[in-house]
Structure formats: C-alpha cells, structure tokens
C-alpha cells in the first residue's frame, strides 16, 4: 500500500540529486511534501535531514535522507531554488534544529520569535521545559523592546521609518535586525 523507499545521499550532493529527481523525465518528483530532521537519542549518531518527495504524474513516493555529523557545522544546501514549498519548511527546520540551509533567501526563525535565545527546541540536549527558568523567561518578556514586534525590513516601509528614533534609523541603514 505505502511504498516507502529511503535513499541516503551525501550532504554535498543533495541539491544535484534532488534537481535531477525533479527535472528528469523518468523521475518527475514535482512535489516536495516535507522537509524535516531527526536527531536520535544516542547523541553520537548523526542528525538526519529528511525530504519527502512525491511524483504526481507517476504516483510515487520517495524519502531522501542526508546525514550531518555533529563535529562539523550543521549546513546543507537549500532546495528552495527547486521547490518554493521549501521556504517555510526549511525555516522551521532551522528554527527547531539549527540546521543552516545554504542558499535559502530568508532563513530566519518562524515559529519562535526572532529574539529567542534559548537554542533549538527539538534538539535532544534541549530540556522539555526550556533552558531558562520561568523567572528568567518572564524577565526577558517584560524587558523586550516593543518595537521588536516589527522587523527592520517592515519598519523600512514608508511612513513608519520617519517615526523611528534616530539610532534605530541608523541601525536600519546598516542593515541590522530588531531586538538586538
């Protein structure tokens, strides 16, 4: 019923292989269902990045996996240039695991807020209740900059820019983000 085939690829060649899967007329995996990652409880094991691909014309399903060892920076090529659906899925994966998708145009946190400092929640070394105490979380929430509700990019829109404090305008011109 369910045809679950898993293919392990080297992290460097992910982009080439997925591009071939997408473009080749005998493959035509034109639908990227999911991008996610798996970290095992055994912390020695590498983190796996998982792509779930579907071929709508041929009705096929394929799981592509790449293993990232932890002694090197967690970086992997982004497939955003092939599938636009990777946009938010890769952002979420970055948010939750800290895996950098090289080539993604707008890789920033999506579910957690941009100023979140506690780390990457779905990593196994992240405690279930969070890394900071309740008191520290409350202190951070109360001392947050209310301007941080908008990103610098948004504040650059027209009128809002003129109403900003001078230092913020200068930071904006340097291309900085809010909440720092």
């Amino acid at each position, binding site marked *: 019923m369910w045809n679950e085939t898993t293919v392990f690829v080297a992290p460097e060649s992910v982009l080439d292989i997925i591009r071939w899967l997408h473009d080749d007329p005998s493959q035509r995996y034109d639908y990227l269902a999911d991008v996610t990652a798996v970290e095992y409880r055994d912390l020695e094991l590498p983190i796996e990045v998982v792509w779930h691909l579907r071929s*709508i014309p041929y009705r096929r399903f394929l799981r592509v996996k790449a293993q990232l060892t932890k002694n090197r920076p967690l970086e992997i090529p982004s497939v955003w240039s092939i599938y*636009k659906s990777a946009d938010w899925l890769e952002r979420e994966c970055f948010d939750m695991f800290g895996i950098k998708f090289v080539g993604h145009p707008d890789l920033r946190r999506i579910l957690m807020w941009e100023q979140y400092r506690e780390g990457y929640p779905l990593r196994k070394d992240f405690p*279930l209740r969070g890394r900071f105490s309740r008191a520290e979380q409350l202190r951070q929430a109360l001392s947050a900059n209310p301007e941080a509700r908008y990103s610098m990019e948004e504040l650059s*829109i*027209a009128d809002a820019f003129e109403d900003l404090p001078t230092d913020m305008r200068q930071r904006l011109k340097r291309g900085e983000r809010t909440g720092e």
Partner: protein
Amino acid sequence: MATQKRTVEVALSTTGVDAQGQPQRVPLVTADDGSAVAVEAPPAIEPDLAGEHMLINIGPQHPATHGVLRLVLELDGETVVRCIPHVGYLHCGFEKIGEYRQYNQIIPWTDREDYLNSIGNNVAFSLGAERLFGVDITPRCTVLRVIAMELSRIISHLVWLGTTCIDIGAFTPFLWSFQERENVYNLLESWVGARLTTTASRVGGMAADIPDGWLEGLRNFIRTFPKTIDEVDRMLTKNGIWVGRTIGLGVMTPDEALNWGLSGPMLRASGVDYDVRKDFPYLDYETYDFDVPVGTSGDVYDRYLVRMEELRQSVRILQQAADRLPDGPVNVDDPRLILPPKSKATSEMESMIHHFKLVMEGPRPPIGESYVAVESPKGEKGYYMVSDGTSKPVRWRIRPPSFVNLSAIPKMVEGHLLSDVIAINASIDIVMGEIDR
C-alpha cells in the same frame, strides 16, 4: 447632416483647470438644431497620489485572520505591494512533547493541532503508528474510521464555509452550516463522548464501538444534510456579490501550486488532480465510489466550488460506508497493543501481566520509521514517526497542510486590494493550531 464646431468655456464643469490655472476651452460639437451631440473630454489632470507606502498590521488578534495569524502589509493606496506573514503565536511544542509520551498518549495532542478535524487526525496518527507496529486493523475498524474521517471533513468544510461567508459579508450561510455542524458533533458525542477533542482512536483500533442505533442517526444526517448544501449553493454560487468578491482572486496556476507545495482543495482548485485518497489510498478508499472535484482557474471562487463538491462527495462516501459496515471486533486481537477487558485483567494471570505492561511501559514498536499521509480537509496531512525500539518515538513530525498552504499567501495577495486579502486568507482554510503546533 453638417456639423458646426465652436468652442465654449467650461469654467463650471468638473474637468477643470489647465496648468496655468485658466479655465479649459473644449470644442463642443453641435448638430444643426443647436443641440450638443458629443463632447471631447479634456485630458484630466491626475493628482500625484503615488509616493508614500503605508504599513498596515492585521492581527494577531483579528477575527478575519482565523486565529492568531499576523500579516504585515505594505500598501500603495489600497493595493497590496508586499505581504509579510508572521506565525508562531500558538506554538505549543507538540512535537517536542510527543518525544516524551507513549504512542497512545500522543493521540490527545493530535486533537489539539487541527482542532476542526480532530477525529481525522486521531485516525491518521493511528494509521502511522500501526504501520510502525506492523499491525493490520480489522474490517469493521476500517469502515468506522472512514466514517470518522468523512464526518470530520464535513465539520471542517462547514466551519470554513461559515467563517468565509462572514468574512465576505454573508451571515445566513454561517448559521445554516453551524447548525449542521452541531448535528455532526451530536453524532460524535454519542459515539466517543466528546465533541471537539475526541481522542477517538487507539493504536490498533478505536476507543469505542458505535452505540446501538447510531447508524440510524448517521443515515438521518446523510438524508437531511444535502438539503443544506443545496440551500447554501442556491444562495451563493450565482450570487452577484459573492461572485464579485471571489472570482479572479489569489490565482495560482497548476505549476505554481505544485511548486509551492499546496495540497487539498487549494491544489485541486488550480486544476491538479491530486487527492491522497485516490492516488495513495489508505483505509480501502480505492473501493469507494466517489469523484474528486478539480477546478480550472485556481481562484477563491474555484476553491469554494471544490469544497462544496467535496461536501457532497463525503456524503456519498458516508452512505457507502454505512451500507457496508461489517460486524465483528473493532480492535485487533493483539495483547501487545490492546488492553484486555477489565474482567479478564482481574481474573487471569496473563491478562493482568499484559494490562500492567501496557499501562506502565506502553506498546513498543520495532526500530523503523513511517510516513503516512491522509487527505485531511486542508490537504495532505502527514505523520512521520521514527522509532528506536522504545515505547516513545524518537521523532514525531506533523506535516501541516495549512502551514505550507499559508506560505504562498505573499504570492497570492500581491497586487490585490486590502479587502481581497481577507477573502484570499479565508480561502486557504487555515487553522492556526496546526500551523504553529
């Protein structure tokens, strides 16, 4: 008929003043009897309104965003130039919590992510876990689950219909659809005891069999519900206001829709014939006789038509499922998974051991992974589970259809008016519980 040309002063007319502030002189063409026949309009002087763009913030506390979605819009006049969505206000960490729970204990969490489709999520999660455990469910359970999934599809589409009507300005279909939704919730309540957060399925079966006479209630619903669809259909489908507010908005071409990863009614409205029930069937959906509606233009109006037709097709599936429901046990006969009856657990040694092991330790799947996708009302909902042989999953991942569908909203609203953003956002059918998880 000869015409005579003369020039008149139009100082009092609205078309105004020339660049020097003098009244404009326009040629007026008159017929022989002196009556005017045509006036060449002077070139109107456009005031320079272009210039500053405006920043508009919608949400997170705004009824038309269907939850805690926040959209930051850059407007040129009333036209959207750019849209920056923000999500995450409802992030609860379901996937993290799931790593600390046994498989049956995760099922209540699936209620709470897409809370309009809770019983469908329960079933989908159980399917994924059963694939991991390598269990085949009983025939009666299969049909019961089909009934559960189609009922939850009806609930979700009815909520979509009602809230979208309210967003666009029609109130009556909201009342009609919520009345029918109450009927479905009454059915669910008499089956599993809960209305919204059902927790109806278990790994290897269901929490409960349907009570006596329940099928009569279902048949009654199947008989009366199409009348409501027809009423809403008559009210909206050819309604000038409805058509004017929805047609040509948020168009996605088939290639774009596939590339952006849209699924469910969003993808089918764009003309891609892809339904998980047909293409990657589960729960014996291939044996049911139903059609998959496919749109042509991929705008808000087509999404509405596709969802209305899906309601009718769900009724067809429910009818067939009610007719074929076989007798027999609901749960699999596997003491590794299913609790023994209480009477046996207190009287037999083996049953007591099974009961103890199941409660204290939980069922343990073999090492492996499974990705099971079902056609939820919002689209392809997948559950990806990785097991390392213990009773708790290493990784439990929800593939959220609304999340991926919503990621296309900056593309869809670009160039439309501010009021159309509300209609386009409504047509995506988002549930923030599922987006933020």
